[in-house]
């Protein structure tokens, strides 16, 4: 179970809506499963079908997490025109087995759907997302 406080959920939804029709992406970091920080990332692909966090920004985020003693808890991105399930590209490029991959579907813009997955060695395992109100 991935616990997602409502404030972070709202921030992520606002971020990916602002990026639409391109995919939006970002990171959640914290300790012992408690989120402490939301990094709104730039999608360097600027694409409706691909995302890639800017390489220079990524190093900065990782340095910040190390300095704070935080772990990378989740990686999120939006699917603007498809369901909230990992694409073949998502599986191929899943290099962070310790993080939960959160996917936000904006197929119906007024009804975003968020689901979480662990992806390791091409195996997708769903992790329930609990939005805490």
């Amino acid at each position: 179970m991935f616990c997602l406080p409502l404030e972070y959920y709202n921030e992520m939804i606002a971020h990916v809506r602002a990026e639409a029709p391109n995919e939006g992406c970002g990171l959640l970091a914290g300790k012992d499963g408690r989120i402490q920080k939301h990094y709104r990332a730039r999608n360097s692909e600027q694409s409706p079908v691909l995302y890639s966090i800017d390489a220079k920004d990524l190093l900065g985020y990782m340095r910040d997490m190390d300095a704070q003693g935080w772990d990378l808890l989740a990686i999120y991105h939006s699917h603007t025109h498809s369901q909230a399930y990992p694409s073949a590209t998502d599986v191929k490029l899943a290099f962070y087995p310790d993080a939960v991959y959160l996917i936000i579907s904006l197929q119906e813009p007024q009804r975003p759907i968020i689901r979480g997955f662990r992806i390791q060695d091409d195996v997708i395992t769903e992790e329930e997302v609990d939005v805490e109100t």
Partner: protein
Amino acid sequence: MTVEVQIPAVLKKHTGGAKSVKGQGQTVRELLDNLDRDYPGIKKQLTSEDGQLHRFVNVYLNDEDIRFLQQMETGLKDGDVVSILPAIAGG
């Protein structure tokens, strides 16, 4: 040249769990060749068959992306820090 190499979680299985290892080489290419001798298999994770860095692997020399330096031929000095980070990307 002896440098510190910061290893991402996804590659720690190659380094016996170490987050940081020492490596040697005059260039990034030599460094990766030498690392592969100590930690077999690690280079294959980072480079393609033509010897270039995989598109979805970022290597930084003291926080500069080597793609904006001399790529695999980027020169190293004693005490440099080389960080390896897989891209965060998908579709």
